[in-house]
C-alpha cells in the first residue's frame, strides 16, 4: 500500500495535506473523529478568518468540498485510529468503526483543544453570564448581533482579556498561543462594525500582531475603529451589583490599580495541546514535547517529521498555529509523505 497516505484529522491542516497527496497522484484516507470535516473553524463556528476576512464557513467549506469531491480521497467521519501496526512504507491502521486502512505514510493533523476558561475562575467565566470566550463571540458575530447573554442588551462597553490560558505558569501554560492578539484586534473591529455605539477595550501584557498583522489589525483597529489598548493583565472580574461587570487590573503604564465597569468581558482563550494527545502518542508511537504537543523531529532536513519514521505532522498538533500556516504545513507534510513513499518505490524497483 505504498500508494496511500493516512491523514488523521480533518481540519485546515489535514484537508490541505490530503489535497496535496491526491494532487501528486497518490491516494488519501482521512480519519476524522467528529461527524463533520473542517476542524476548529467549522466546529466552533468561527466568523471571518484572519487575515483573509473571508467567512470561515465559505473558506474552509471550499477545502472540505475539495476533499469530499476527490475520487482519490476516502473519508471516515466519526472514527478514530485505535491501533497502528507496521512500519514506514507499510502501516496497517485499525479504526474504531471496524475498518482497516493500509497506508505507506501517516500525517497527523490532530490540531489543538481550546483552553477551558473554567480553569481561571477569578476571571468570572461560568460565574457571570456576560463573561464569554472568543469562540462564543465568534459565533455571535457570525449570527450578526452583539448582545449581552444576561438580558439581551447591546453592550456599551466590551473588554477583551488577552492571554487567557496562555503565558501563565500558575496553570502550567508557558506558551504564547500566537493568534489571540490578532484575532482579538480583528474581533474588536467586527464588534464595532455590528454595533457602532459599543466601545471595545483590549487588556494586554504584550501585543504580538506579528509580521503583516501589525498595520492590518493592530493599527487599523485603533485608527479606524477606536479600539483602546490598555497594558494590564486583569486580576479578577467581579459584579458591580447593578448588572455590570467590574474588571480589576493595574494600568502598568500609568502605574496605578484600576477598577473599570464593563457590560461584557471576553476571554481571548489560548490553544491547549489536543486533549487526546496522550492517546495519540500511544496509538501512533510518537513523542510529545514538554508542553504536551507533538514532538517535532529535527526540522532542517526532516521537515514535518515526528519521533517515528513514516509519521509526519502539521499545524496546531505541533503547537499554537495560525490557520494559514497550518494549511501551508499540511501541504508540506502531504508532500513529505508522498515524496518518501516515492523514494521507497524507486529503491525497491
Amino acid at each position: 500500500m505504498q500508494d496511500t497516505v493516512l491523514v488523521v484529522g480533518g481540519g485546515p491542516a489535514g484537508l490541505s495535506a490530503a489535497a496535496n497527496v491526491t494532487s501528486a497522484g497518490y491516494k488519501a484516507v482521512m480519519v476524522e473523529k467528529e461527524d463533520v470535516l473542517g476542524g476548529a473553524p467549522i466546529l466552533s463556528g468561527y466568523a471571518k478568518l484572519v487575515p483573509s476576512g473571508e467567512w470561515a464557513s465559505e473558506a474552509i467549506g471550499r477545502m472540505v468540498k475539495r476533499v469530499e469531491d476527490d475520487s482519490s480521497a476516502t473519508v471516515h467521519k466519526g472514527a478514530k485510529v485505535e491501533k497502528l501496526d507496521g512500519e514506514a512504507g507499510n502501516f496497517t491502521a485499525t479504526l474504531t468503526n471496524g475498518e482497516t486502512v493500509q497506508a505507506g505514510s501517516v500525517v497527523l493533523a490532530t490540531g489543538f483543544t481550546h483552553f477551558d476558561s473554567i480553569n481561571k475562575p477569578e476571571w468570572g467565566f461560568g460565574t457571570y453570564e456576560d463573561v464569554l470566550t472568543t469562540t462564543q463571540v465568534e459565533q455571535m458575530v457570525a449570527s450578526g448581533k452583539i448582545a449581552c447573554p444576561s438580558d439581551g442588551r447591546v453592550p456599551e462597553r466590551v473588554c477583551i482579556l488577552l492571554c487567557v490560558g496562555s503565558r501563565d505558569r500558575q496553570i502550567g501554560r508557558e506558551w504564547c498561543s500566537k493568534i489571540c492578539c490578532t484575532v482579538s484586534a480583528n474581533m474588536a473591529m467586527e464588534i464595532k462594525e455590528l454595533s457602532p455605539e459599543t466601545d471595545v477595550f483590549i487588556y494586554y501584557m504584550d501585543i504580538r500582531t506579528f509580521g503583516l498583522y501589525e498595520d492590518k489589525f493592530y493599527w487599523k483597529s485603533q485608527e479606524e475603529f477606536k479600539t483602546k489598548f490598555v497594558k494590564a493583565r486583569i486580576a479578577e472580574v467581579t459584579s458591580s451589583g447593578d448588572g455590570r461587570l467590574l474588571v480589576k487590573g493595574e494600568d502598568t503604564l500609568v502605574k496605578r490599580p484600576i477598577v473599570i465597569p464593563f457590560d461584557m468581558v471576553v476571554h481571548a482563550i489560548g490553544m491547549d495541546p489536543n486533549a487526546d494527545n496522550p492517546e495519540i502518542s500511544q496509538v501512533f508511537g510518537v513523542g510529545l514535547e514538554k508542553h504536551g504537543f507533538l514532538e517535532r523531529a529535527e526540522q532542517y532536513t526532516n521537515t514535518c517529521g515526528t519521533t517515528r519514521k513514516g509519521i509526519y505532522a502539521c499545524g496546531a498538533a505541533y503547537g499554537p498555529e495560525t490557520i494559514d500556516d497550518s494549511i501551508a504545513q499540511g501541504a508540506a507534510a502531504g508532500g513529505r509523505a508522498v515524496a518518501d513513499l516515492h523514494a521507497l518505490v524507486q529503491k525497491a524497483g
Partner: protein
Amino acid sequence: MATYAEMQQIFDDIRGDFRYDHDLNGCLNCGICTATCPSAQFYDYSPREIVQLLWTENVEQIYDAMQEKIWACAQCMTCAARCPFKNSPGGLVAIMREVAIKHEMQSAKDVLRPFGRVMLKLITTGNQLSPDMIQPDHFPDWGPNIQKVEGDLQVLRKAIPVKTLQTVETAWEVSLKTSVEMYTIWEMTGVLKSLELMDENLFDVIEDFIDEKREDYEDWLEEQEEEDDE
C-alpha cells in the same frame, strides 16, 4: 543619604539571599500583582515596581523604596499566588525588610518602633495581641470604631465559653515549655538579633525576661525530676 557604594552593598545583600532567585524569575510587567494587592489600593506601593527595580538592578530606587514603600506590604502573598511568571513580590519584600534591619536603616527603626509593644507582648505572653491592648488611646490609627470595644473587658471575656480564653492580659494561655521553645526559635532564626539592631533598650528588657523564664523552666524540670524520684 547613603553613598552609591552603600546602596550597591544593600542591593548585593538582597540579591545574595538564598531565596532571591526562587522569588524572582524576571518580569512580564503585566501588573497582576499590583492589581490584586490590597496595600496598593491604599498606599503609594506597587509590588510590580519593587520587582522591576530589583530585576533592573536600580540600586538608588531600591534604596529609596526601602525607606517607606516596602513597609506598606501586608505580606498576604496574593501577588505570589497570581503572578503568571511565579515570582513572589511579597517574598522579595520580606528579604528587603531583613536587609533594611541588618543595615540598621533609620527608616526601618522608625517604621518598627510602634510594634515594640507587640513584640514585648509576644515575648512575654506568647500572644501578639491581647484584649487589654484594644483601647481607644493605644491604636489611634485604628479609627473611631475602636470605641465600640471599650468596656469592662473582664466581664466581656467571661461571656466566652472557653475557659483558657477568659483572660485580658493574654489572648490565651501559653505554656512555659512552649514559650521557652519559641525563644530558641527566635534566637536561632535571628529574630532576637534583628530586635537588638532595631531597639537596644527593648532588646535588653526582653533578654532579661527570657533569662528569667528559662530559669523558671529549669526549676520546673528539676521539680518534675524530684517528683519522679519520690
